[in-house]
């Protein structure tokens, strides 16, 4: 299936599922971090100005720390996320699913300098698009991935409907498709939702349009355990 979910085998013989984050959401998180850092520097520059020459030295050190250490320190000590990543629900993990530690965090953030070339993350973007796991060059070298922290379907998003038992047993993958669709219905136009719901007559029993959609939502409600 064309999907951003990655299965990671563990010593216990099961597979963990990570949901990888793509370039767009990561760019947004980076922008947010950029503004956060700029804001912080601007606010701090006022008291620092009052310190005169001492302040000049301090502000240069601060600037250095903000540029090179800010991401690494946050990723190691704040559950894998800078404030920007946190706002978008992202986190950095080792590729084996464990929390990122200092060596890997240092590598991925120092090599940012190369990802940034030739213009605002040109190499980083190409690398992300070419690699299987959306890794920029720094991620490949460090062995890290950026994932969505909450990787399950948000069940709260599924609209309420009268629960209905599916007419035939569904595999886990089929269930997941159905739940994904149901969670996305509020974002779709009515026509598109009806069109999609019409694709599975063996579940909806050849009901038309609104009936088919209601039926699918009912099944989705049943699947997440809502009962009448």
């Amino acid at each position, binding site marked *: 299936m064309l999907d951003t979910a990655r299965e990671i085998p563990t010593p216990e013989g099961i597979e963990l599922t990570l949901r990888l984050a793509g370039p767009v959401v990561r760019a947004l998180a980076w922008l947010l971090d950029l503004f956060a850092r700029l804001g912080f520097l601007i606010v701090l520059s006022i008291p620092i100005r009052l310190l005169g020459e001492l302040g000049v030295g301090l502000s240069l050190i601060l600037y250095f720390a903000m540029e090179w250490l800010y991401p690494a320190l946050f990723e190691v000590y704040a559950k894998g996320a800078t404030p920007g990543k946190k706002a978008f629900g992202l986190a950095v993990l080792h590729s084996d699913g464990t929390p990122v530690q200092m060596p890997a965090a240092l590598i991925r953030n*120092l090599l940012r300098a190369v990802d940034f070339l030739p213009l605002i993350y040109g190499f980083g973007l190409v690398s992300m698009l070419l690699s299987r796991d959306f890794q920029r060059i720094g991620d490949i070298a460090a062995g890290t991935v950026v994932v969505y922290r909450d990787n399950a379907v948000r069940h709260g998003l599924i609209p309420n409907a009268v629960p209905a038992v599916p007419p035939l047993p569904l595999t886990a993958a089929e269930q997941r498709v159905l739940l994904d669709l149901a969670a996305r219905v509020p974002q779709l136009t009515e026509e598109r939702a009806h069109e999609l719901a019409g694709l599975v007559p063996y579940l909806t029993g050849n009901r038309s349009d609104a009936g088919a959609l209601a039926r699918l939502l009912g099944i989705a409600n049943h*699947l997440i355990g809502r009962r009448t």
Partner: protein
Amino acid sequence: MRQDIFEETYRARWAEFADWLKSLGPRRADQSVATTIDVLDIPARYRELCQQLALARDRQYSAELIDRLGQLVLAGHQALYGARSRSTDQLMQFFRGGFPRSVRREIRFVLVAALLFFGPLLLLTAIIPSYPDFAYIILPAEALDGVQEMYGSAAQQLGRKRQADSDVAMFGFYIFNNVRIGFQTFASGLLFGIGALFYLVYNGLFIGAVTGHLVHAGLARNFFSFTAGHSAFELCAICLSGAAGLKLGYALIAPGRRTRGAALRIAAKESVPLVVGLSTMLLIAAGIEAFWSPRTFVPPTAKYAVGAAMWILLLTYFAFGGRTRGA
């Protein structure tokens, strides 16, 4: 077993495990999460959870249950396999032995980097006093004039463009500038080593041209008495950053029997000690350069002695540090 019975049977145990995970997180004053599981039982409980997830998948229970158990297992995996050791101990260990050991392990890259850096540096320093025009090929005339002013006999503070710049301001500047150059040299090694190569030779030529020019201008005494103190730490750190960068590039050019990605991952991991060590060295160099080197009341002989002592200290550290069993 039907799903609802399955869930009913294990719900309490899952909740206990979730409580244990919560108890690891940052504790809030108002609510203390009590865990009812003995720490020694955790691995067994985790394996049990994994088995239940596998069962749930195999029996095609609902995706919702599988997701829920999957989240719990993922959090458990992170808690169990992501455990950290005490980082302050590690840091001490690192400077006692780990750092010099990794410098010796990467001695081939260090030597190549030293050749690329000290080669042009020493060559220009030796040539330019006899062929002074050579300096103008490397650097523009204004730059050379500026340097000459910094070390001229009129300078109250050696090595400063503006005499009024305070020590602390310069300290900040040296950190901001020099550590960044170190990091850039390292990172640009990723471009098949070309970046690191460039920075090494470029910095070698630059420093060599400046040194040669000042020697020719008869300011050798001022210049060397300024640079002697921090030269060991700064020059060796530049050399190491080049070595670390070359190591990255070499992994891409000649990955051996690994894929390029795997070779790069291993090389990057092995170069971390070098990078951490060299940035510390640059911090020390910045301190010396800002607070000791510009002092004009210290006689040059004393400064040369301190500088020589630094070189001996540093090279001894790299050659012998961390060789004993205890370190």
